[in-house]
C-alpha cells in the first residue's frame, strides 16, 4: 500500500517506520526537514519537506494514488483540513486525523473524519491503570468510549439471569466462558459458578457495572 504521513513528530516518525517495516511505500511530509532525523537510517520511504495542505506537496507525495493518509501535525486545525482535503478532493480511501482536543474529536467524527485522540485514549488508559479493578478491559472501542471487559461472575449473581446484568444501551453481556468454552447467552441464560463474563460497557457506565457486580 501507498501511505502518506503528514507530520514527522514522535508519532508520525514512529508510524512511518512501522508502516515501512511492514513493507508499505511510505511518504512522510513535514515543514521542518530536521524532523526527518527521527526516522533513522533504516527508513526506506520518502521524506518530503513542505506544508501538509500545500497542493504541490500533496501531489509530490502522489496523494491521488495513496491508499491511506494520516494527518499527525501538532495542529488540530491543520489535521482536520488535511483530512478533509485528502478524503473529499483526492478520494484517499483511508484517512485518519489526530486531534488533541477531545471535545472536537466527537463532532469531527460526525463530519465523516476518522479521528484518533491520544488525549481521550491516554485519559482512559491512565484512569484504568490507577484504579484497581477486577474488571479487565480486553478491548477499547473507539477511543475508549466503550470497552469490552471481562470478570469472573461474583457469587451474588450466580443463579441470576443475564437480564439482571444488562442495562439497555449501556451494559450488555456478549459472551460467557463456561468450562473453558465461550458461548453467546440470551437474556434468560442463568449464570453459574466459575462463569467468565464478557461484557461491552460504555465508559460512562463502568461505575454502574461495578455496582451491579457488587464491586463497590
Amino acid at each position: 500500500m501507498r501511505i502518506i504521513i503528514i507530520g514527522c513528530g514522535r508519532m508520525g516518525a514512529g508510524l512511518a517506520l512501522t508502516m515501512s517495516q511492514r513493507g508499505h511505500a511510505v511518504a512522510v511530509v513535514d515543514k521542518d526537514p530536521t524532523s526527518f532525523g527521527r526516522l533513522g537510517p533504516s527508513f526506506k520511504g520518502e521524506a518530503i519537506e513542505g506544508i501538509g495542505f500545500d497542493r504541490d506537496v500533496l501531489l509530490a507525495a502522489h496523494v491521488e494514488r495513496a491508499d491511506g493518509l494520516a494527518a499527525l501535525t501538532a495542529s488540530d486545525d491543520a489535521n482536520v483540513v488535511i483530512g478533509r482535503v485528502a478524503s473529499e478532493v483526492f478520494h484517499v480511501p483511508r484517512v485518519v486525523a489526530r486531534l488533541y482536543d477531545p471535545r472536537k474529536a466527537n463532532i469531527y467524527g460526525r463530519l465523516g473524519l476518522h479521528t484518533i485522540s491520544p488525549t481521550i485514549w491516554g485519559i482512559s488508559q491512565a484512569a484504568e491503570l490507577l484504579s484497581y479493578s477486577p474488571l479487565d478491559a480486553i478491548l477499547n472501542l473507539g477511543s475508549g468510549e466503550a470497552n469490552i471487559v471481562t470478570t469472573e461472575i461474583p457469587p451474588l449473581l450466580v443463579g441470576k439471569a443475564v437480564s439482571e446484568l444488562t442495562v439497555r444501551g449501556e451494559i450488555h453481556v456478549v459472551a460467557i466462558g463456561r468450562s473453558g468454552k465461550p458461548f453467546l447467552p440470551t437474556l434468560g441464560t442463568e449464570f453459574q459458578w466459575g462463569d467468565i463474563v464478557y461484557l461491552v460497557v460504555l465508559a460512562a457506565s463502568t461505575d454502574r457495572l461495578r455496582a451491579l457486580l457488587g464491586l463497590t
Partner: protein
Amino acid sequence: MAMKVIIVGGGKVGTSLALLLLEKGYSVKVIEAEREKLSRLQQDLPADVVALGNGTDPVVLEAAGILGVDVVAATTGQDETNLVVTNLARFAFNVARIVARVNNPKNAWMFTPMMGVDVAVNQADLMASLIAKESVIE
C-alpha cells in the same frame, strides 16, 4: 427580522466587517480566541457583540448562536482555522451562507463548497488586481 451573522476572528478584517454589518442593522457576534485582543475589540465594538473563545470549538459556536444564524464569516489570519470553521458551519450546523478569508493565495484551492465555503475572499488577489487597475494610466 435582522440578519444574524457570526464572524470568527476579531482582527482588523473581522472588526471592520462587524462595524459595517452593525451599521446596516445586522445582528452580529464576533468570536475571538485571544484574550489579549479582547479589550481592544470591546472598545471598537459594543460589548454584547464580542465573545471570547475558539471558533473551531463546537461548544463556543453553539453558545454564540450558530444554530439560528444566517451567515458565518471566517476571517482569522490562519487559513486552516478558517477552513475548520467553514466545515463545521456547513456540515455540523447547516449554516445557509458561509464566507471565508483566504490569507495565503496558495491555499485558495481548498476554499470550495466541498469544504463548506460559498464565497472565498482572496485578499492578496483582490489587492493585487485593485493596485494593477489603479496603476494603469490612461
